[in-house]
């Protein structure tokens, strides 16, 4: 299955290796029908510590959510203030 990832803020740099900027995001293919958010992090080689929260299809999702074909995942960095 294929999911589309957008990384925001400081995390966008991690996508640079995958050939995208944070504006467009990238698509990733997994052989399984479903994967966990943790598996997505692992594939992107980012540690959970640097992630603030995640949204699946525009809605904030718990980090133990499972995603499936054509899901859009937004990954936001942790912040301390604003």
């Amino acid at each position: 299955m294929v999911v589309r990832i957008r990384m925001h803020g400081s995390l966008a740099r991690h996508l640079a290796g995958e050939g995208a900027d944070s504006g467009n995001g990238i698509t990733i293919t997994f052989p399984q029908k479903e994967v966990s958010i943790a598996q997505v992090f692992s594939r992107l080689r980012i540690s959970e510590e640097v992630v603030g929260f995640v949204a699946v299809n525009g809605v904030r999702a718990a980090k133990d959510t499972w995603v499936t074909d054509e899901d859009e995942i937004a990954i936001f960095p942790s912040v301390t203030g604003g």
Partner: protein
Amino acid sequence: MSYTGKVLRVNLCTGDVTKESLNQNWAEKYFGGKGLGVKYLYEELREGIDPLSSANKLILTTGPFTGTVVPCSGRLTFAAKSPATGTMLDSSIGGRFATQLKFAGYDVLIIEGQAENPVCLVIHDDKIEIRDATRLWGKSIFETESQLEEEFEREPGILSIGPAGEKLVYIACIGTEYYRQAARCGIGAVMGSKKLKAIVCSGSNDVTVPDMPGLLKLVKRLIWEDVLTDANLGIYIDGTPQIVDMSNTAGVLPTRNFQDGVFEGASKINAEAIRRLQPRKKACPACALGCGNYIRIGNSAVEGPEYETLALVGSNCGVDDIEAIIRFNAECDDVGIDTISAGNIVGFAMEMTERGIKDFGIRFGDIETYLKMPRLIGCQEGMGEELSRGVRYLAEKYGGGEFAMEVKGLELPGYDPRGSWSMGLAYATANRGGCHMGGFPIASEAFGDIDPFTIEGKAKLTIDSQHYNAIKFSLVLCDFWAVSLETMSELISCVWGREVSVAELKKAAERIWNIGRLFNVREGFKAGEDTLPDRIFTDPLKSGTPAGRVLPRDQFDAMLREYYQLRGWDSNGIPTPEKLKELDM
């Protein structure tokens, strides 16, 4: 220790200038910045004074790290009694004034009384002058700085007010380096009430620490291992605009006077929209990050817009035109008013007009009229005079109280509590009114791992967030460095030359929080004022993650009760004698 050990006190009634010793006992317990400022305020003010009278004081504090290479330490704190809320106020500003004050030889500057005619205070090392500033009175902040920069050879720190501060507008701010402000709670009006148009400061003295090699080694490691990391770099890469997409996705972005938490125009006012304008980065002294985005569009220039401005002046007013937001922002900075309150007030006026309750002649998205607002409000022209008094006043006079988005008279900033219940508690209990700087629990909650829609654990989360900020802003470290308590302990131990444990910092934080609360209690604040606008309890959000939700009143009440309990306060929210004794107060 790294203090100069000197407090500069200037009385504008008598013209007396005195240099006294820093109260070391207080410095040990309150550190500097927010804590020390509020402690001096509490001790030196008596209850019940008129904040716009000569009895109020403008207290400027640095911190133990100011003037050193400790990263993100170059900020100044103001403390005073707020004319907008009647509570204590602490407000912080970037730019070089704080470090210049320290290099001039002072940890604290206290301004008392009122001048008869407009004055400008000029400080260079131990040479202090109170100069006539009649020629500057009436000038905007940008004009004032432009004039003053010609008069001084060195590059001093300059603080000034615009017409809004002069006219005692409740949302007046103090500006520095053109584009930075201390803006909330009417701090600019306090300065204006003293007829103090500007303060200019430069210094040439050394700042010393007991273990320079040790500090340099520690800081060098921290800059690369703790500051320039994923946790913090977003603020350098994008600045605070990175939060627009976060808020919108979490459904907490104030939209059309907090009628919703998702804005259809968010992608036009987010970090990407700012990036397209190719900002130049600017940092405060000793900041290894650098959050400032300097942007010039046509005749308008800003260091910003910051997230709060994008939210309150953008989505909250139904405006998705980034250039219009920048122009509004620049007008606010020039005339000298707070963009958060200004945007919130304009959003309220828009809803009142659209609902037919009171015609303020402006609707959501009406850019033409909207762009006139900062000057109308700041210069007290036409309907600006009334609008400037804030949404609480407007609602009392015209109605619409259910959606006057304020707490204790301070307009709410950019996070909707219906999508982040801990922020609701944070807003209700912040010492200076509806504020996101008292504590920022949303970072771990809606923007983190914790379920936003439960009250479980939220009282403790909010208290911990408030304590984290209290100690951070008293050591004076910038909000944007996600520095741990352990690292703060390492830094202050090195700079003080004695072990300062995390436990000691936590206790100090609680003390700092309680002294602010005591100030308000002494002014007569009651528990009933620790609350939220009706809209939060009764009006469900419509879109996104929190669609259909309110923060239920009974849940809020339970959260607040637990908060008082955990704080060791009585059921009226008053710190008990036992708690005060425990905190050595």
